[in-house]
């Protein structure tokens, strides 16, 4: 019989630091794993996330997210039935919320891959506790993002024309366009993320196969565990494959947002036509991703009482990265302005120096600067880096700021391009707003399900980390 596991097994986790009092440890970096709980205790604590009772709060969360998901699907149906005229898009603003949301969501996904792949290669131990959480975020964000390239098509039922297949028309995708690149990149990114996530999940699924409370659940987990036994051979290939996937995902994550940026940079539109876009977009993506990580993990940590495995060390590191990425974004904004002035291109100059900071949508520009460049400067302070309430607010603001960044790039650039005769403003419709809200709900629904279905802190990896830490401390 599986051993019953639950809160009573938490044993070694009683010793905790108080998140609300970051000044307790002013100079020392907090530990990545507090209290060194043993394997059984860690397993019990972390596997228990899948067996928490369905409290009223959970039901409410699922209900809200479910309702918003229904709204999303209803509006998607409306859009497909009536045409994307139900959105606010027009000529010249032919891309609106659809592509903004696409870029925003896919950018959010990047933090997950960044944490799980790049930080793995860089041997950052603090990634271990949060990598699966952020990978889940990646998957669900990419799923939201993936909706939009389909949905924004005039004729979504022909979306398969973006992929090469031997058609009776003898026609093929046109690969000089950045959109088939996008299709390839987003598809690859989603599939590789799923693979990476799943590979890491297998040992923990095996643990749940052996310890989930009911037989149906154990069978379900068992099927996905594929019969994992933890043999030496399995661990050996698992480790190599995991490292290889991390090695592949690292250039992939850079390429994906670079390719997304090509949607803009490969055109001639003032405000889009810029070589700085690939690094600018990648940095912006990670900025928004880390903001979303903070937004999600601060409440999750509290709800699941994971203070011992997700410690102030994690938040401190995430906050520092947020600051770095914020500066890269700030640099990019500055370079855009500088190049617009230095190039003496009248169209680019008007776009960057007149229209964005002073045009109809100037409020969006300055709010973006505030969120992405100004607020983040608070993170210079160690004390504020460990103030979770503040971090949560900053996370929300940066999310907003990054959405506005895409709004500035897409809508504001399109609304004022070369010929003033064609200029026209964009105003979103309720369908635009509803779909954006709906994806937030759908994302939340998937994420809540994820939190309850699989251990979102990697148990095996954390146990191994503990063993390594113990070994080092012994030495």
């Amino acid at each position: 019989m599986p051993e019953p596991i639950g809160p009573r097994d938490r044993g070694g986790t009683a010793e905790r630091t108080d998140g609300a009092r970051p000044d307790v440890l002013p100079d020392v970096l907090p530990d990545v794993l507090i209290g060194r709980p043993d394997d059984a205790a860690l397993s019990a604590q972390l596997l228990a996330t899948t067996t928490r009772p369905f409290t009223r709060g959970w039901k409410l969360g699922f209900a809200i997210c479910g309702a918003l998901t229904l709204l999303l699907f209803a509006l998607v149906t409306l859009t497909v039935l009536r045409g994307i005229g139900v959105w606010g898009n027009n000529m010249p603003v032919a891309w609106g919320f659809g592509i903004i949301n696409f870029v925003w969501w896919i950018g959010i996904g990047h933090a997950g891959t960044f944490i799980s792949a790049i930080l793995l290669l860089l041997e950052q131990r603090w990634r271990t506790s949060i990598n699966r959480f952020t990978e889940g975020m990646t998957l669900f964000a990419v799923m939201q993002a993936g909706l939009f390239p389909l949905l924004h098509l005039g004729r979504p039922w022909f979306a398969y024309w973006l992929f090469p297949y031997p058609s009776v028309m003898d026609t093929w995708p046109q690969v000089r366009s950045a959109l088939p690149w996008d299709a390839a990149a987003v598809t690859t990114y989603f599939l590789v993320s799923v693979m990476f996530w799943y590979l890491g999940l297998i040992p923990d699924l095996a643990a749940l196969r052996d310890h989930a409370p009911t037989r149906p659940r154990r069978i379900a987990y068992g099927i996905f565990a594929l019969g994992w036994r933890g043999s030496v051979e399995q661990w050996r290939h698992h480790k190599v494959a995991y490292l290889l996937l991390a090695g592949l995902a690292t250039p992939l994550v850079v390429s994906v947002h670079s390719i997304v940026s090509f949607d803009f940079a490969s055109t001639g539109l003032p405000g889009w036509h810029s070589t700085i876009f690939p690094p600018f977009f990648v940095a912006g993506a990670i900025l928004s991703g880390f903001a979303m990580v903070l937004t999600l993990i601060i409440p999750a940590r509290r709800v699941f009482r994971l203070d011992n495995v997700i410690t102030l060390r994690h938040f401190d590191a995430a906050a520092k990265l947020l600051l770095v990425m914020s500066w890269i974004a700030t640099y990019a904004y500055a370079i855009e302005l500088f190049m617009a002035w230095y190039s003496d291109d009248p169209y680019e100059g008007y776009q960057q120096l007149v229209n964005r900071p002073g045009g109809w949508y100037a409020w969006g520009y300055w709010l973006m600067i505030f969120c992405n460049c100004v607020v983040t400067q608070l993170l210079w302070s160690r004390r504020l880096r460990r103030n979770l309430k503040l971090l949560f607010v900053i996370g929300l603001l940066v999310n907003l700021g990054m959405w506005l960044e895409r709004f500035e790039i897409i809508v504001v650039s399109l609304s004022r391009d070369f010929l003033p005769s064609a200029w026209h403003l964009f105003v979103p419709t309720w369908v635009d707003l509803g779909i954006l809200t709906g994806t937030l709900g759908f994302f939340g629904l998937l994420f809540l399900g994820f939190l309850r279905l699989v251990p979102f802190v990697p148990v095996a990896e954390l146990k191994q980390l503990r063993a390594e830490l113990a070994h080092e401390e012994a030495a």
Partner: protein
Amino acid sequence: MPTDGFDLEHGVRQEALERAVARVGHGWHGIAALVELAAASAWPAERAAHEAAPDDPGAAPGDPALSRRSFLQLAGSGAAAVGLAACSSRPSREILPYASQPPELTPGVPLHYATALVEDGFATGVLVASHEGRPTKVEGNPDHPASLGATRAIEQAAVLQLFDPERARLITERGAPAPWAAIEAVLDAARAARGDGLHLVLEPTTSPIAIELIRRVRAALPAAGVTFWSPFSPRASLAGNRLAFGRPLQTQLELRAADVIVALDADLVAEHPMALAYARQISDRRRVVDGGSAMSRLYAIEAGYTATGVIADHRFSVRGSQIERVAGELLAAVLGRLGLAGPPPALTARLASVAPAAERAPWIVAIAAELTGAPGRSVVVAGERQPLVVHAIAAAINAALGNLGRTVGYTEPVAFEAGQPSHDLAGVVRAIDRGAVTRLLVLGGNPVYTAPQGVALAGAIGRVADSVYLGLYDHETARACRYAVPGLHELEQWGAARAYDGTLTPIQPLIEPLFGGRSVADVLHRLLDDPPADARDRLAAAWSRLVPDAPLEAALGLGAVPGTAAPHVAVELAWGALAPVISAAGARSPAPLELAIRPHPFVHDGRYTNNPWLLELPEPITKLTWDCAAQLSPATAARLGVADGDLLALTVAGPGAAGGDTVVAAALAPTATIELPAIIVPGHADDAITVHAGFGRDGGEHTARGIGASAFRLWRSALEFHPAITAVARGDRRPLAITQAELSDEDRPLALTGTLAGLAGPAVRDALAHHRGAQPSLYARRPHAPGAQWAMSIDLTTCTGCSACVMACAAENNTPVVGARQVRNGREMHWLRIDRYYRGPADAPVLAVQPMACQHCELAPCEYVCPVEATTHSPDGLNEMTYNRCIGTRFCSNNCPYKVRRFNWFDFKDHRGLRIAARNPDVTVRDRGVMEKCTYCVQRIRRAEIDARVADRPLAGSDVRTACQQVCPTQAIAFGSLTEVDSPVVEHRRRPHSYAVLHDQGTAPRTQYLARIRNPNGALP
């Protein structure tokens, strides 16, 4: 009734019509479904509802020549496909061949017929393409003097009016179906009374056949009254000429001979009945090859911006009421320079004391110097919206300059009894008020709507026992009358009309009357109790009687009878009669705010307001669609505290200040008010508001109904101009459906301008050279494929912005109508737009217009971003748009620097309704979710290619004319192959002012422009 064996019961005709139209609906380029449509629509609609109605022999088509191109014998037509566009499974459809195929017809090959479209009595000759009996496209008739191969936007849209499903279909009595016998009873009673109590209201007519008929009516029914009415038919010019020459005369211009043209509130190139010819004449003198080209000089003095003001070298904005004064000052200055002995001494003395107002003294003097420097080679013209005295002064100046007989001539009025009392609508009301009218026949027009406020026609009609209206629509007049009878569209009837210059033009039908209906002639013949006859026979008989020298068949082939222009008459200026009025000219002090009512450039006086194509066509100056607005200058808007879209209540005062001579003062309401949104027009004269007529319709025309407000409600009398009004901001607003909100070009080099003198020097030429030539590229350029390389060149100097090209493009290419709401959101679908930019100070700006469509870039930015090869490049240099491959990413539009691509945000195309019959079968009808844009009329190019190959001859660039090129009144558009070194388009490219828009973007556009060259007077700033 011939039904050609269609097995349809009476009761299902109407339903069958709908069904047939529904079948034609989806993406078709065929015609077979129209067979059913034919069967249904050819049945006189009232019979469907009233089987008991006796047949009308006069309306029954029996003549084989007519029915040859009628729908009925269409009984299927060849092999066109009808049905679903993108259907994957194999569509199994029917082919319905003719039972007996007409000899001149090959299914799939369109035929063209010459006919004429008539407005205010004047004919514009057109050629109409017919696909298996279905008229689809109107082109100008090059052999017709009032067309010269061009048309206005209005003619282009005529097919849509023909196929307007909202046309009247039934004879009604107070809205309820009525039999034709009821009308016959009225006519018989009128005849029995020898016209006693009968009054006819007709539109002005120039047709000798109609005139003969009217004379017969007068003779047979001597007691009958006849009145002609059309609100914007020439009236002031005739009256002014009567003042100057003693009798009403029609002014005829020869502008090719004019070096200097002064237009006093006269829109010669767009609003005039002869506008197409005058536009051609003016532009023929303004085609700039290089700095050494001779060029006429055009001065426009006007209140609102007009097309003439657009192309003018100098434009001075003067409120309408002050132009009278300007004219007087100009006359004084001219006479002062000439020192002529003609005028009576008193007048000379009076004029000697006239000094121009200080602010306009420089240009009055300069213009006078120009005019006197070109005696016999200059012309001064006054517009119809100016009082007669201005016309008289213009005549005096022309006489003084010796222009008469050279640039200006006079003919007897072409319209029947024009300038006579019978053209006074107030006469009808007076007659009714006298109780002298018991039977009123209103045959055509819409006088209840267009009557000046001082002519209370609607109420008067209500007092007539038997009133009958005949016309296309169930509109205001039709509803005011007891009976309404469906009329015939010009494309449905036989007849004749004269052009403004008098040229006789035959009218032939392109199609059997869609809804039955009667022509005016039918009613008049019935009134005279003529025996029933076929309309064509009647025309042939009358024609051979009235025009014995020109056989009808030949005239129908040519579309005009050459040599029938009205002869010019010798005139003598009556200085003596002029002296008192000239002395009084401009003596009144101006009101704080005045009103000018102008015909709308597209809906005219409201007769075309139910045509969605014309409603959605942006008004050339304001770019307003689907609405009517109060145009005012920025300063006046600031004074009134309004911005674009703010509602203004415009109120005209009651009687008293009225200066007209036909006001029925007693009928005037104390005040009349309409509400309109304001729209700011830089360059508009201050303290004046211009309102276009034709809106505020409240009849049964669903499309037109409820749009804007009627300017006629502020119009107090037919010869009153520029009344004082008050305007009060209402505090609320109505968003305007404007296609171009931006006024400025942000100093970007888009619509380049220069002066003729500048072009002669190196500076301007060098500056222009920066906008053409090769641009560096990382990739090697693809070599041109052998064969034609299509290209276009647009001359901005002669472009008047009249927008006929936009309409022609829409008619040719099946572009959908989207409605005001979508236009407001920037979703209009016109492939060609006319960009308009103001430059210079807001009170005296220069307006630049620039037709902008797909530039067919050789290095097209749109193509390389399309993910599915839906937009590609053809070997002959076309930027192809393959609709059926498009998935609608809209990436191409984002990367188009010219933003000329259009997207089907919704399913914009019509599905039901007769209007789809106006579609061009050679162009795919686009589905929802696909991109579309100008194709250089690729269907015409491929057709010409195929024709050349079938005929085994080489393709010449001149074999292809794009729709916009063909319609252009000033021939501003050249199109052809770059491989033909002597083609116009290559010759244009050699000119020093040829340039590419956004040349610095490296797109290598195939459409280039000739910069707009002005020829300003060096003596003026």
